[in-house]
């Protein structure tokens, strides 16, 4: 034994620089880390983002308010409906209008379905990166069931639904929506039970995530963490509870919090949040009122196709809304509207000068703030722990890099 320890002292490891990503499966394709390593220990790290930057804000400032909707799809492309609605709500706030009750219910349900698909993807990917391929396949199957519901409603699948509209949603729900959603939820609930059985007490999984990537509540707040990553440290901040929007005030749901702020707590928080989202969906389905799904204001919402082809006024109205300089023109002013995205607080700050294009459109990306804390979370740890830590943050390139 003594020989071994003398040997270890004599072998000098040289500090090594290693480039991890951007083309690395665990870096989600969009992040590069310059690691300084001492053996397998991370001594220092420089995290580089921006590989998926496409000028979201600049593009939106040069398009009409309506055209910006499709760009918001591509922010967090794992839960795009929440981005759609968040953006639409920001413009509605500029106008100072309120959308019909049924629209709010639809938005709530679709947001929660999106949140579930997002959490499923995150947990599944983290599990897969640690070798638990079964859990990954089960969860993606559940996500597929939910995507079918989204496809029925929006026409698009997971990534590009473009369903939100300023002042409403694109169309009402299909007739069989209730039944299909209930079935998809039932299926997902069964999958969650299976995954809990596979992972939650699995020695191999727990050893890799428990006590790894720990961050304290104070540090998390300082780094601008929101969403499940903040709640895993014990801070119960959830925009849906703190500053309710849509119909969250009428819903009965809990905000799960962790205690340690490690990868395991983030995993448990997400698993519990999926269950809470299902509760919200079930309550909203039961309470769903009838009525219009968009505001009756022809300065903001488009007339239906039947009306456009059926009467002259609607045709003129349609033309005007799509003509440059005549479209949706909110009054002058500035607003900040936050919604609870799947990763945390997703905010839109819009400055309007009264024209048909946003003078300034800023998206407050939850991922960007959290990736700024990655350095703190992986420094001093092992190189292999980067994978679960980075995975459990659920960094989404489209939103981080915009």
């Amino acid at each position, binding site marked *: 034994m003594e020989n071994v320890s003398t040997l270890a002292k004599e072998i000098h490891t040289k500090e090594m620089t290693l480039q991890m990503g951007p083309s690395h499966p665990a870096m989600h394709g969009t992040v590069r880390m310059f690691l300084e390593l001492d053996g397998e220990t991370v001594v220092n790290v420089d995290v580089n983002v921006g590989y998926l930057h496409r000028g979201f804000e600049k593009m939106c400032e040069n398009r009409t308010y309506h055209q910006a909707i499709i760009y918001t799809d591509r922010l967090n492309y794992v839960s795009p409906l929440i981005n759609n609605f968040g953006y639409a709500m920001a413009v509605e706030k500029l106008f100072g209008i309120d959308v019909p009750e049924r629209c709010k219910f639809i938005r709530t349900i679709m947001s929660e379905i999106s949140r579930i698909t997002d959490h499923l993807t995150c947990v599944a990917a983290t599990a897969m990166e640690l070798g638990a391929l079964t859990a990954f396949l089960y969860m993606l199957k559940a996500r597929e069931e939910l995507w079918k519901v989204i496809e029925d409603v929006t026409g698009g699948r997971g990534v590009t639904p473009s369903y939100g509209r300023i002042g409403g949603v694109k169309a009402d729900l299909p007739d069989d929506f209730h039944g299909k959603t209930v079935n998809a939820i039932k299926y997902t609930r069964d999958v969650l039970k299976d995954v809990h059985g596979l992972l939650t007490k699995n020695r191999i999984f727990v050893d890799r995530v428990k006590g790894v990537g720990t961050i304290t509540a104070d540090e998390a707040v300082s780094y*601008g963490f929101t969403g499940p990553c903040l709640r895993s440290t014990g801070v119960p901040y959830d925009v849906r509870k*703190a500053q309710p929007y849509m119909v969250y005030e009428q819903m009965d749901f809990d905000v799960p919090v962790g205690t340690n702020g490690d990868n395991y707590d983030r995993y448990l928080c997400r698993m519990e949040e999926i269950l809470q989202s299902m509760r919200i969906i079930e309550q909203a389905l039961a309470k769903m009122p009838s009525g219009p799904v968009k505001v009756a204001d022809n300065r903001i919402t488009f007339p239906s196709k039947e009306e456009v082809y059926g009467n002259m006024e609607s045709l003129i109205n349609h033309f005007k809304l799509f003509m440059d300089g005549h479209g949706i023109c909110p009054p002058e002013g*500035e607003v900040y509207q936050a919604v609870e995205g799947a990763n945390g607080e997703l905010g839109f700050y819009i400055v309007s000068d009264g024209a048909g294009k946003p003078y300034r459109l800023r998206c407050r990306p939850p991922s960007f703030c959290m990736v700024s804390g990655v350095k703190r979370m992986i420094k001093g740890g092992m190189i292999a722990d980067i994978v679960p830590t980075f995975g459990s943050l659920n960094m989404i390139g489209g939103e981080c890099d915009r």
Partner: protein
Amino acid sequence: MIEGVTLKKLREKFHGSVIETHSHRGDDTAVIKRVDIVDVCRFLRDDADLSYNFLMDLTAVDYLGKKELRFEVVYHFYSFKKNERVRIKAAVPESDPSIDSISSLWSVANWLERECWDMFGIRFNGHPDLRRILLYEEFEGHPLRKDYPVDKRQPLALPES
């Protein structure tokens, strides 16, 4: 409309610095002089009644040709204790686009200020590592400025082989 506690306190404490306050659509906003930004932010965070412990967002707006001072740096704070938000704005002139960094108060300001420098070319004095973040080092100009053409292309030159 009755002014909120936050704006009232800010006015009392920094009466020489607060240029204007308003609450458009319920968003409390205070426009302050840029020299006091660090003091104002520290006060917002550390005052026991206010406790704006979250720096939610930091960005800028380019008012080219619209305002005398071209840029406005915009801060959004959230107080977990009060469950309220406040927006702080500080105007920055084109001739000297700089403001003091608040990265010593919030860790997240480090990256948000880097992004602001990258996109608007606003310098943050005292920032420990003011590099570009979303764009590459060789990029010329700051794309979110209003005088940066939307269709300009800057392909990254590959090293000659």
